[in-house]
C-alpha cells in the first residue's frame, strides 16, 4: 500500500516537472509560428521570425545574452575552482562555506539591488575614492581644489554599461557560491569522499602539492558529476531577467529582458514577437551549452598532456593568491553591501561624499512595512505551501526509489527530468505556460502560481535531500524491516527521525527558492499576487532608494530566518530529548538509592527555606 503511494508520488513528481515545461514550450512555439487565435492570427508562417530578425538591435541582444551568460559562467567556474583548490584541504574550508552560503540563499533580486547601491556613482566605493582623492589633492595642491567639484561619474561607468560587464560580474558573484557548494556536496558523498581522500594521500606521498592534486586528481574524478549543475547555471545566466533588468544596459537590453518587455506590452500583437524571441532564447541557451561543452572538450584534451608531465606544482602561488583575493573580495563586497543597505534603510538624508548618513529615522520602515504587509503574507503562504508539499513529494519519491528501484533507463530519464526546469530558460516556457493556464482555469491564480513555483522548488529540494537520503546506511532499514515493521513504519519511525536535520535544511532551501521567484510569480499570477520579491524589483525603478533598502533587508532576512529555524530546531529537539533522558536517569537513581533521595529532599527543603 505504502509502496504504491510512493510510486504514485514518483510519477506525480515526474509529471509535475515535465508537463508545465513541455506545455509552456508549445505555448510559445505556436504563437512564434504565427498561430495565436486570441488576436485573430490563425495561419502558420515564418513571418514573425522574419520580423524578429529584422529588428536592428536583435544581434546585439543575442550577443549580450551569450556574452554575459558564458562569460559569467566561465569566470564563476574558474573562481570556484581557484577557491576550492586553495581551501579544500585547509581548516578554513568551513569558514569559506560560511561566508559564501548567505550569498546562495539571498534572492537574486536583492543581491542585484544591493550591488547596484554599492557600485552606483554615489555608492560607498565612489565616496571613499572621492574622499581619498580629496584628501590627497588637499594635501598636495593646498586648498585650490573644490571638493564638491570632483567628478565621480567615472566610477559609475561600470553600471548599465553597453557591454554588459556589470551584469556579467553580478551573475558570477552569485554563481560562485552555488558551484562551490554543489562541488563540496559531491565531494562529501561517502564513496566519493573515500576515494578522494585516498587519491589526495597518494598524491601527497608522490610529492604533489595540494593544488596540483586538486587539478590532477580530484577535479577529473568529480567533474562529470558537477557538469549538469554547471550547465544549469549557464542556462540560468543566459536567460536571467532580474539581474540584467536591475544592473544591465537598456538600449538594447539582454534578450531575456526584451522578451519580458514585449510580452507585457499593451499591444497584444507584440505577443507574437515575444514568442518568437522566446524560441530564440532557447536557441541562444542551447548555443551557450554547445560552446561550453566544446571548450570543455578542448581543455580536457589540452589537460591530458599536462597530466602525465610529472610536474608536482600547478601555479600554486598564483592560484592560492587568487583564491585568497576572491575570498577577500567577497568579504569586502558583503560588508559594503550590508553597510550601505542598512544605512540607507535608516537614513534621513545621505549626501554623496559622506560616509555616514545625516540623521536616522524609522519612517521608511513604517512606510515599507505597511506596504509590505499583504505581499509578506502572500510570500510566506506560498513559500510554506510550496516547500512543504515539494518536500513530501520528494521524500516519497526517494523512498520509492529504495523500495522499488527503477530500471537504469527510467532512472536516467528521471534524473534528466529533474534538471529540465533548470535547463530550459524560464523566460521561454513560463509565458507559454501562462497562455495554457489562461485557457484552462482563468481564475485559479493561486494554483497557477503554486505550480510555477513547484517547477523551480522541487529540483532543488530533491538535490538537497537526495544526498542525505542516499547517505543513510540502508542496513538500519533492513534491521527494522526484519524486526517486523512495515515499509511505512520504517519510513516514519526510522528514516524521517534520522534525517530530521537534512529535511529541515531542504525545507528552508525550498522556502528560499520560492521566496526569490520573480518571473514565475509575476507571470503565473498575472500580477495579482504581489510578493516581497516582485515589490522589491518594482521599487527599484519607482520609489526612493531608502525605501528600496528596507525592501532588500526584508527580502534578505526571510530566507535567513527559514535557515535559522532549520539549523536550530534539530539542535533544540535533540537537546530536549537529552534533557528528558537526563531527568529519567535522575529519577531512577533516586528510587534506587534511598540515601540519595534523602539528600535531595534535604536540598529541596533548603531551597524552599531560602525562598521563604
Amino acid at each position, binding site marked *: 500500500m505504502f509502496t504504491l503511494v510512493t510510486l504514485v508520488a514518483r510519477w506525480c513528481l515526474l509529471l509535475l516537472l515535465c508537463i508545465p515545461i513541455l506545455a509552456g514550450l508549445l505555448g510559445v512555439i505556436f504563437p512564434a509560428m504565427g498561430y495565436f487565435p486570441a488576436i485573430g492570427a490563425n495561419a502558420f508562417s515564418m513571418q514573425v521570425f522574419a520580423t524578429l530578425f529584422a529588428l536592428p538591435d536583435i544581434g546585439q541582444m543575442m550577443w549580450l545574452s551569450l556574452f554575459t551568460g558564458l562569460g559569467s559562467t566561465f569566470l564563476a567556474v574558474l573562481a570556484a575552482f581557484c577557491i576550492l583548490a586553495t581551501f579544500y584541504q585547509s581548516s578554513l574550508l568551513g569558514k569559506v562555506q560560511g561566508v559564501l552560503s548567505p550569498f546562495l540563499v539571498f534572492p537574486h533580486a536583492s543581491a542585484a539591488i544591493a550591488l547596484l547601491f554599492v557600485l552606483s556613482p554615489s555608492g560607498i566605493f565612489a565616496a571613499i575614492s572621492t574622499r581619498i582623492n580629496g584628501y590627497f589633492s588637499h594635501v598636495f595642491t593646498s586648498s585650490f581644489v573644490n571638493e564638491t567639484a570632483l567628478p565621480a561619474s567615472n566610477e559609475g561607468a561600470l553600471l548599465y554599461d553597453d557591454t554588459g560587464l556589470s551584469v556579467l560580474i553580478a551573475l558570477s558573484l552569485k554563481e560562485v557560491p552555488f558551484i562551490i557548494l554543489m562541488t563540496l556536496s559531491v565531494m562529501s558523498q561517502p564513496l566519493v569522499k573515500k576515494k578522494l581522500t585516498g587519491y589526495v594521500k597518494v598524491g601527497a606521498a608522490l610529492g604533489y602539492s595540494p593544488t596540483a592534486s586538486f587539478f590532477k586528481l580530484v577535479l577529473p574524478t568529480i567533474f562529470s558529476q558537477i557538469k549538469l549543475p554547471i550547465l544549469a547555471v549557464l542556462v540560468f545566466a543566459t536567460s536571467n531577467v532580474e539581474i540584467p533588468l536591475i544592473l544591465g544596459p537598456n538600449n538594447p537590453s539582454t534578450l531575456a529582458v526584451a522578451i519580458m518587455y514585449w510580452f507585457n506590452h499593451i499591444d497584444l500583437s507584440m505577443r507574437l514577437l515575444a514568442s518568437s524571441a522566446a524560441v530564440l532564447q532557447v536557441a541562444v541557451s542551447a548555443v551557450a551549452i554547445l560552446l561550453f561543452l566544446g571548450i570543455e572538450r578542448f581543455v580536457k584534451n589540452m589537460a591530458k598532456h599536462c597530466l602525465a608531465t610529472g610536474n608536482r606544482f600547478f601555479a600554486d602561488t598564483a592560484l592560492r593568491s587568487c583564491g585568497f583575493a576572491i575570498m577577500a573580495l567577497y568579504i569586502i563586497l558583503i560588508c559594503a553591501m550590508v553597510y550601505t543597505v542598512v544605512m540607507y534603510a535608516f537614513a534621513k538624508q545621505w549626501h554623496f561624499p559622506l560616509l555616514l548618513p545625516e540623521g536616522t529615522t524609522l519612517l521608511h520602515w513604517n512606510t515599507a512595512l505597511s506596504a509590505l504587509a499583504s505581499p509578506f503574507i502572500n510570500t510566506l503562504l506560498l513559500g510554506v505551501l510550496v516547500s512543504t508539499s515539494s518536500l513530501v513529494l520528494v521524500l516519497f519519491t526517494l523512498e520509492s526509489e529504495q523500495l522499488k528501484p527503477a530500471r537504469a533507463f527510467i532512472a536516467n530519464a528521471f534524473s534528466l527530468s529533474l534538471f529540465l526546469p533548470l535547463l530550459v530558460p524560464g523566460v521561454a516556457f513560463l509565458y507559454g505556460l501562462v497562455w495554457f493556464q489562461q485557457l484552462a482555469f482563468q481564475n485559479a491564480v493561486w494554483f497557477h502560481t503554486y505550480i510555477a513555483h513547484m517547477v523551480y522548488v522541487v529540483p532543488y529540494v530533491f538535490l538537497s535531500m537526495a544526498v542525505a537520503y542516499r547517505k543513510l546506511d540502508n542496513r538500519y532499514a533492513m534491521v527494522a524491516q*526484519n*524486526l517486523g515493521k512495515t515499509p511505512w513504519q520504517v519510513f516514519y519511525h526510522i528514516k524521517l527521525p534520522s534525517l530530521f536535520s537534512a529535511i529541515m535544511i531542504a525545507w528552508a532551501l525550498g522556502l528560499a527558492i520560492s521566496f526569490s521567484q520573480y518571473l514565475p510569480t509575476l507571470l503565473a499570477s498575472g500580477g495579482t499576487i504581489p510578493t516581497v520579491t516582485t515589490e522589491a524589483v518594482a521599487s527599484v525603478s519607482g520609489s526612493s532608494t531608502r525605501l528600496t533598502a528596507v525592501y532588500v533587508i526584508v527580502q534578505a532576512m526571510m530566507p535567513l530566518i527559514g535557515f535559522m529555524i532549520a539549523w536550530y530546531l534539530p539542535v533544540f529537539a535533540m537537546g530536549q530529548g537529552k534533557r528528558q533522558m537526563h531527568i529519567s536517569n535522575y529519577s531512577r537513581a533516586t528510587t534506587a538509592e534511598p540515601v540519595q533521595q534523602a539528600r535531595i529532599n534535604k536540598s529541596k527543603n533548603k531551597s524552599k527555606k531560602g525562598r521563604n
Partner: protein
Amino acid sequence: MLSLEEIVIYRDKEPLLQLSAEVAKGEVLTVMGPSGAGKSTLLQAIAGQLQAPFTLAGQIKINDVVMNNIDAHLRKVGIMFQDALLFEHMTVGENIAFAMPNNAHKNKQMKRDAINELLAAVELDGLADRAVTTLSGGQQARISLIRTLASQPEVVLLDEPFSKLDVALRSQIRTWTFSQLKARCIPAVLVTHDKDDALAAGGEVIELR
C-alpha cells in the same frame, strides 16, 4: 525449522551460489567462504531483502511455509550485522520496545518489565533509559542481540556479527548469542570468516567457493 531447498542465487543470469540445507530449532548453520562468494547475499535472500541484480530460485521454508513471495517485514526473520545498528534517536528501552510485536503486552508497565527482563538476561539491568551513543561497543552488541530477540523471530541471521569486536569480548558475546538462541529454540544461519565462530556455533558448516 528453516529449510533451504535447492537454493540457487543468480547475479544477472550467472549462478552465484547453490546450496541445500536444513536447520533444526536451536541449531546454527555456519556458512563460510571468501569475500564475494555470496554469503551476505544468501542472508538477504532468506531475509527477503534481495535486490537487483540478484535473483533467487529454489524454496525457502520456515516451519514448512514457503517464504519466497512473502515481504521482508512479515517473515519473522531477524538479522544482525557486524555493527550493532541501534537507532540513535531512541533510547535503549525504546530500541527494544520498537522491536516488540504490537499487542505483545497488556500495558506499558508489563512492556517495561519485559524490557528489563531482557536487559537482565544479558547483565545490562537498568540501562533502559540510556542514550545508545553512551554505550560501549560490547554493550551495544548485546542490546542489538536482545532487540532482535524481542521481535520474537522464527529464524535469526547473523552476518559476521562478531568480527568488529576485540578478542576478549568476542568469545563472551558469542557465548551469549548462541546460548540465547538455543534457549529460545531459534534456528540460525551464521556467516563468518572465523573458524572459531564456526566451532563455537557447533552446527553444520558449509564452505562456499
